[in-house]
């Protein structure tokens, strides 16, 4: 009871280093609800990642027919029916806001479920663990092997494991570059060594990073490299569901045999039989019974492990389960458990998500496929002509986002009696400049607006440029100023 704690012990506890050298984790295989969910999510996520570049989407003659394509050389992003121009990169801002909000919501509902189920680091590490288990055996086998000198057979297995890892990593890098060029052509070019050097370089980079991060660094990435755990820890609250060891029910832990004896005598013992299965299956190498920890990615595998044990010994499952901070206290006080997924915080996040989605959808549906921007000449801002009228010059850039050429007319609403003239175009049509816009490009024009002025004219008047597609009737406009010298 009165065991004296030396000053040294206390200090060392406080002075624990910020970085703990890597310990190899040998997680044991496990079956159960959460493991199944994880397998399925992994199949879906990796399936999308590896196969999406091969999905085709017809966009008309001359346009790429890849469903998802980031065409950097031509500065176009294709996403199924959406084609984005560099000017529209704000959609990505919207996506980032959505991603952040979705993460906040997930966190308010279920803690770090992103980490446990969806994070790429988790998915690939899980896959690599599966390969390792398949080649070198489960936890016990590998622990035993690690304690003994290496043999030929084991060396061969190790080579095989690394070969599979590298293949997966290489294919991961390979899939990455397929998003940036026509996938089918690129695969052929890669195989025949015709692809651009940058493709090989990126495959190299992603192969190396996948191999190192998923094969070697594993949970170290989550603890030392990833900023999310810190952010998410700051966002969580007492209502969020986290993987929790219900110590109110589990303690005092006590071996099965002893507990049967003690219970027979009517003494209270906890449900945990101290079998350590929960720690054995943990991919982060931690013991959840020590409470919430930075290393825990909330994957729920310890729940599956413990549930299996509980079933075997005939006790109620979910000794470890998704639980919130409030319930432990309530159960100890004999009250019923309380879950509140709908509360101000989640309502705010959900409505923000809805609002951002609605705004983006509206912007996407109402965006014009004909657009223009106007830049007023700065030097000189205005020119006096010999008849006393004033002319202003503008650089007008027209955007034709459609997949075909079209003819547009330019009109202005500006100072009284103002006339518009497009350099190089007036020899074709005099009264109303007509311009041919090539498909999916921008066209830059020098536009001159001339207006007779008298001394009653204002020094600066608004001028509105309007372009009208002669065939489709689409109209776009932009406003600038007409100034006097």
């Amino acid at each position, binding site marked *: 009871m009165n065991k004296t704690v030396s000053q040294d012990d206390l200090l060392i506890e406080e002075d624990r280093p910020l970085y703990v050298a890597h310990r190899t984790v040998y997680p044991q295989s496990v079956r159960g609800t959460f493991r199944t969910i994880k397998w399925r999510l992994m199949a879906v996520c990796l399936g999308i990642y590896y196969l999406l570049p091969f999905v085709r989407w017809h966009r008309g003659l001359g346009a790429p027919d890849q469903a998802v394509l980031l065409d950097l050389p031509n500065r176009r992003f294709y996403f199924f029916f959406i084609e984005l121009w560099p000017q529209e990169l704000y959609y990505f801002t919207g996506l980032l806001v959505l991603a952040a909000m979705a993460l906040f919501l997930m966190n308010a509902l279920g803690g770090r479920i992103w980490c446990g189920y969806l994070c790429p680091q988790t998915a690939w590490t899980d896959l690599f663990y599966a390969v390792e288990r398949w080649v070198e055996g489960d936890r016990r086998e590998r622990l035993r092997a690690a304690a003994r000198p290496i043999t030929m057979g084991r060396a061969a297995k190790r080579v095989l494991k690394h070969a599979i890892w590298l293949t997966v990593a290489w294919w991961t890098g390979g899939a990455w570059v397929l998003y940036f060029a026509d996938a089918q052509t690129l695969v052929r070019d890669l195989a025949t060594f015709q692809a651009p050097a940058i493709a090989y370089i990126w495959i190299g980079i992603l192969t190396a990073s996948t191999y190192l991060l998923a094969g070697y660094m594993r949970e170290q990435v989550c603890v030392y490299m990833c900023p999310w755990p810190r952010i998410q820890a700051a966002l969580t609250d007492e209502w969020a569901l986290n993987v929790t060891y219900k110590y109110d029910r589990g303690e005092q832990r006590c071996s099965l045999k002893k507990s049967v004896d003690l219970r027979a005598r009517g003494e209270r013992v906890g449900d945990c039989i101290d079998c350590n299965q929960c720690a054995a299956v943990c991919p982060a190498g931690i013991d959840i019974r020590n409470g919430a920890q930075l290393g825990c990615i909330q994957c729920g595998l310890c729940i599956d492990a413990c549930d299996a044990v509980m079933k075997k010994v005939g006790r109620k499952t979910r000794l470890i389960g998704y639980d919130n901070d409030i319930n432990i206290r309530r159960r100890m006080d004999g009250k019923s458990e309380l879950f509140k997924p709908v509360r101000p915080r989640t309502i705010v996040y959900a409505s923000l998500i809805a609002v951002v989605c609605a705004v983006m959808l509206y912007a996407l549906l109402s965006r014009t496929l004909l657009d223009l921007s106007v830049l007023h000449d700065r*030097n*000189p801002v205005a020119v*006096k*002509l010999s008849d006393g009228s004033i002319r202003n010059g503008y650089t007008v850039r027209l955007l034709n986002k459609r997949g075909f050429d079209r003819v547009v007319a330019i009109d202005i609403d500006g100072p009284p009696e103002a006339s518009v003239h497009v350099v190089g175009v007036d020899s074709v049509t005099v009264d109303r400049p007509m311009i041919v816009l090539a498909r999916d490009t921008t066209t830059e024009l*020098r536009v001159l607006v001339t207006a007779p002025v008298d001394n009653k004219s204002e020094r600066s008047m608004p001028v509105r440029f309007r372009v009208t597609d002669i065939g489709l009737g689409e109209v776009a406009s932009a406003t600038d100023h007409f100034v006097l010298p």
Partner: protein
Amino acid sequence: MIEHNDIDRIPGRSTTGHEWDGIRELNTPLPRWWILAFYATILWAIGYWVVYPAWPLLSNYTTGALHYSTRASVVSDLAGLEKLRGEKMAVLGKASLTEIENDPALLALARARGKTVFADNCAPCHGSGAAGAKGYPNLNDDDWLWGGSLDQILQTIQFGARSGHAEAHEGQMLAFGRDGILKIGEIVTVANYVRSLSGLTTAANFDAAAATRIFAENCAVCHGENAKGNQALGAPNLTDGIWLYGSDEATLVETISYGRTGVMPAWSGRLDPITVKALAVYVHSLGGGQ
């Protein structure tokens, strides 16, 4: 040589023995990768000396095994650039001025080329936006001393005005005052007359009849009976609102008394023909071209 015996308790390693406000630094050896990188940089430096120019000598420098020279590489880069541009520019050379202006792609090319050449060669006098200055015409407006059609602009750029080139524009505004052709009173009168032609106010006691006579006898030869100017002589139109040197009475008196002989250099010898062509299209497209 560590003479103290100061071991840090937590990692169990020795420290440097120095203490700063209670903090002691572990005597950690340099990491191996760092040492290796350090030696690698030394090797790299030696290799660099051998391969590239590195050592200054008394009157020269070591040229290195590769005989690398920034000047030579700039020259070859420029040659490469010229070659690259040459192909595109050759198209401009073949097309006529009107063809260039009516083809959006060629126009864009000529304007891009013209713009940079203008900034390098013409901007000192005409301004970076070609808005001109006193004595230097504004090339954005539609008032042209020597004509504003594509061909006329091209010709002016090629040979200049009073440039000394055999084909240059020639034309002289006489010094009516200095050379004693007109008396000062007559000069003031005709200056006011010229102001009246473009609707500017005139002096109260201005004798319009005398002015008309003086103008007809002295000025109409070049500027025309109706004072609309003559592009063959570079004689400006005196009835419009644009004045190269200014329209106030004092400036006009100065102009009439001493004459004006602005010079535009000939560019045909200094710029290649395709560049001059691009320049003409650019100037024409500024908006004032006729």
